[in-house]
């Protein structure tokens, strides 16, 4: 049942880990940078033994958010950027911050609960109940209970209960993979030859998909299949297809 605890002995969840990393960095004086946090977070995630899919997803979701924050920072020209994007980014960050604060709050509460339980454990309640002489007074609970009814009660109690289906509504499904994005983006570029990043993400609302697409373009750039140009800071990025069509496009493994 408690499989999580076994696979990740130190951290109960992504917030737990992130909280730990950030608060630990605080000790190392001022140079806390998001970059370090992201790197360490990814290292921790990579270090984890094979864990169950749900938990891995939750860790990766936070990793994706961190990468997003990081990629934003890597985009030059922060002064005159798109205000909407800027705001969205802050919103994202504030959301994460709020959740981390919640996480910290309840961690502290839990330790107080622990103290309360430890103290309460020292006392044992009286549970002996009324003496026999009062037994006759107690109304017969089994009034009207037939053997058949007892049998039905047993069957009801012993019947297999379908395990609750794990609801993942809270986890934003990560539909986008970099590999898929590579294919899509390449196809588009073959047609257009020259386009902009904004056009390549037209109609995509999901933040993570946009990030994934950005990563795909960086990958193409690394492989020498596209050229990138950005005229002004925070301006649109031009993407120019260099037309290497022969071999199949593949991706290196991403750390995140």
């Amino acid at each position, binding site marked *: 049942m408690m499989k999580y605890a076994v696979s990740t002995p130190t951290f109960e969840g992504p917030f737990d880990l992130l909280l730990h990393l950030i608060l630990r960095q605080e000790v190392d004086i001022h140079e806390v940078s998001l970059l370090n946090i992201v790197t360490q977070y990814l290292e921790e995630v990579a270090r984890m033994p094979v864990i169950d899919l749900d938990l891995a997803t939750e860790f990766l979701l936070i990793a994706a958010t961190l990468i997003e924050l990081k990629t934003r920072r890597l985009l030059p020209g922060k002064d005159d950027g798109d205000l909407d994007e800027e705001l969205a980014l802050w919103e994202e960050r504030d959301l994460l911050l709020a959740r981390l604060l919640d996480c910290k709050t309840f961690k502290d509460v839990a330790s107080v609960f622990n103290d309360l339980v430890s103290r309460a454990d020292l006392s044992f309640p009286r549970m002996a109940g009324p003496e026999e002489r009062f037994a006759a007074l107690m109304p017969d609970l089994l009034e009207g209970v037939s053997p058949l009814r007892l049998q039905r009660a047993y069957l*009801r109690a012993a*019947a297999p209960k379908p395990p609750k289906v794990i609801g993942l509504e809270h986890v934003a499904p990560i539909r986008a993979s970099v590999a898929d994005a590579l294919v899509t983006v390449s196809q588009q570029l073959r047609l257009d030859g020259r386009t902009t990043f904004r056009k390549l993400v037209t109609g995509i609302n999901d933040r993570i998909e946009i990030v994934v697409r950005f990563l795909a373009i960086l990958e193409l750039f690394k492989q020498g299949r596209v050229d990138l140009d950005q005229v002004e800071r925070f301006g649109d990025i031009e993407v120019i297809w260099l037309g290497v069509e022969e071999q199949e496009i593949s991706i290196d493994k991403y750390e995140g």
Partner: protein
Amino acid sequence: MSDAENTLDPEIVRALEAILLVAMEPVSPVLLAQLLEISQTTVEEVCERLAETYESAGHGFQLVKIAGGFRFQSHPDLAPYVERFVLDGQQARVSSAALETLAIIAYKQPLSRTQIAAIRGVDPEAVMRTLQARGYITEVERDDGPGQAVMFGTTPLFLERLGIASIEHLPSIADFIPDASVVEALERGLRVETDDVTAPEV
């Protein structure tokens, strides 16, 4: 009484009070002597003195020796209040949770609280306390295994109330036990689409 105990050792008195308060049944002087690391005679003496103290202080409870052991009980003077409490404070009908627990014990006895919890999926402690207080179930033996879990079973009163001569006369449940594959699937935590063997709600 020996001289040494003319004044009761407060630590021993307090420990005695604590143990007897949480005990479900009378506690034998032998066991008390072991727990407190004093002689059985001392236990007897201290308990007697303590009982007198309660009586003269006019408490609503008593310390009595009964069935070979000591226990706290309500003072007979206060029976009218206790009766009112017993009548007022209890539900007149058996809850479905209680009935299910009782059914499990009836069909699977003897079994421990942990085993019942495993079948019901919830801790049956409170319900079992009620059933035991009503005299429908009782501790029947201790498990041989490590930890020596207390095992429970039904009482003659239970049979009497159900109007049957013996446990063998309960309707059979064998036909309804889910087969191994269902059990296995449940253990794996998979969702099973199975025709429910659940009997209709009573």
